[in-house]
């Protein structure tokens, strides 16, 4: 047997093994996933109120959304604003928390658990609390900021009731649950070989240097992960606006997924909602494919050879 045939044989074998390992997921996607996905694409070309049978309308839904629907553009604009701010901010806070909680001090397990607490608290409790804290007239936050307002002689901030600040307020509230991504970063930090730190210490590197030259570069796989997931998730931002602001004030927190939800649940226009879903998919897909190019800056320990 020549060397070349062994290599092709190995390649063929790896090809097969690759498919075998992916097969549970692939099987699920093809058998359980394809029908609903195809149906939603079909619905996007129909008029369907979810009770009567759908009637085909061709590209009409898409045409209307792009040419004669002010809310489509408004909600898309709101969503892009949210994505641009929430994604980077979420990463900075998540990494920050993880760095803070990766120290070996007594009671760290308790601190970590406490920081994670908002992720487990019931949504209703969280909502009421947020509304109360941020209430412009008597909320705790404006009470705390009062000296600051007096110092700069300014009006108290209106938070979620001010249409210029409402999106930022929701983003701030969302940061409360940064504990979720923190867990991923913490897990990532455990995979960094101690030997790297040890040799850096021998070279006299301090905490800052170790963080910048070892921890952060080796966290890029999980930062990259949270970035891509943040993109995909933020484009579908919905729940927080639904429970906190009902899309207001003045539709300033009326996001794309919210509009889609209303189209389906309130207007019973499933065809239009499906068209919106597929437009969203294509948009996010394009953005994600561009974002995936950042992969070349990601440092995988396993790729190094």
């Amino acid at each position, binding site marked *: 047997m020549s060397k070349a045939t062994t290599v092709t044989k190995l390649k063929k074998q790896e090809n097969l093994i690759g498919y075998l390992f*992916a097969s*549970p*997921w*692939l099987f699920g996607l093809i058998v359980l996933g394809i029908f609903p996905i195809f149906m939603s694409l079909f619905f996007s070309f129909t008029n369907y109120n979810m009770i009567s049978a759908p009637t085909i309308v061709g590209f009409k839904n898409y045409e209307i959304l792009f040419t004669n629907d002010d809310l489509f553009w408004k909600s898309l604009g709101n969503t892009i604003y949210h994505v641009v701010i929430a994604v980077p901010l979420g990463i900075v806070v998540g990494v920050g928390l993880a760095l803070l909680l990766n120290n070996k001090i007594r009671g760290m397990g308790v*601190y970590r658990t406490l920081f994670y607490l908002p992720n487990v608290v019931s949504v209703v409790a969280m909502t009421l609390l947020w509304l109360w804290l941020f209430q412009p007239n008597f909320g705790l936050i404006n009470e705390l900021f009062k000296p600051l307002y007096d110092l700069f002689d300014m009006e108290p901030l209106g938070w979620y009731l001010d249409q210029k600040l409402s999106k930022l307020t929701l983003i701030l509230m969302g940061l409360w649950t940064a504990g979720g991504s923190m867990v991923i970063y*913490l897990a990532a930090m455990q*995979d960094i070989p101690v030997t790297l730190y040890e040799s850096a210490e021998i070279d006299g590197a301090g905490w800052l240097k170790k963080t910048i030259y070892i921890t952060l570069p080796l966290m890029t796989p999980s930062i990259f992960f949270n970035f891509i997931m943040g993109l*995909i998730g933020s484009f579908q931002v919905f729940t927080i606006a639904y429970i906190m602001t009902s899309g207001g004030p003045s539709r300033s927190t009326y996001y794309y997924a919210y509009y889609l939800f209303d189209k389906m649940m309130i207007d019973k226009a499933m065809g239009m909602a499906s068209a919106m879903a597929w437009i969203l998919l294509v948009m996010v897909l394009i953005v994600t494919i561009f974002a995936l190019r950042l992969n070349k800056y990601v440092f995988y320990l396993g790729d*190094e050879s």
Partner: protein
Amino acid sequence: MTETVLKRPKYRSRKRRRIIVHSVLHIVLVLCSFVFVFPFLWMLFTALKTPAELLKGISVFFPAEPQWQNFVSAVQKIPFFMYLKNSLIIVLSVMTGTIFSATTAAYAFAKLKWKGRDKWFIVMLATMMLPIQVILIPTFVMYSWIGWLGTRLPMIVPAFFGGGAAFYIFLLRQFFKGIPKEMTESAIIDGANHWQIFTKIMLPLSKPAIMTVALFTFMGAWNDYFGPLIFLSNPDHWTLALGLRSFQTQYGGQYNLMMAASILIMLPTLILFFLAQKTFIEGIKFTGIKG
């Protein structure tokens, strides 16, 4: 001799510095903790209120007389233990299924070269981009065709086939890619096959990541009420998260009972988190490998 004399003061100042740094850290952490614990305290105090106190809204923050029996009635008003059992069946199955289907797929994406891999990777990401609302009805119709209505299967089976696992596949792929090649290559030279590499090297070395996936899937399945609401037709299969919603009635509802019950169901998640984060301390850290 001279060396130790020289080193000592340095060592001491370092120790002092560490004490200062740690104290500052503790102060920062305690302050931050308060912000994060606040929602929980709010829940607790609400759970302990009387209906009359609830009516007063935020003007009453602390309950005058803590109504501990609210916890008891929350448990007694619903078939708590039946719901608990149902939740455990679904949650444990989803955890098992997701860990199985996500780790295998992640291994394929991270460590194996196969035709179309990168295209399938994009497809996998794309499955997360379609808002689930628009596939809800066709999914339900499909399950009714297969004859799964009235069973727990719609909540359990998809997990074993990567249903909802795209997030975890991607996450694990990132971790697997961080595992040095030398480890897998030397195993291949030793005659190990891919399944052995997967179970003997990849999985043990990715304990923190797998714990993270376990934690997230647990939380997701444990707190999900919408899936059980739509896909479970038999009320005897209802889960805790769904059963608790009975306290939310048309006109506001029994907030105190709701909060009491919510506290009860968040406890297992907290315990699981506490256990999971411990693996983040042990770490595996490849102590045997030179970088």
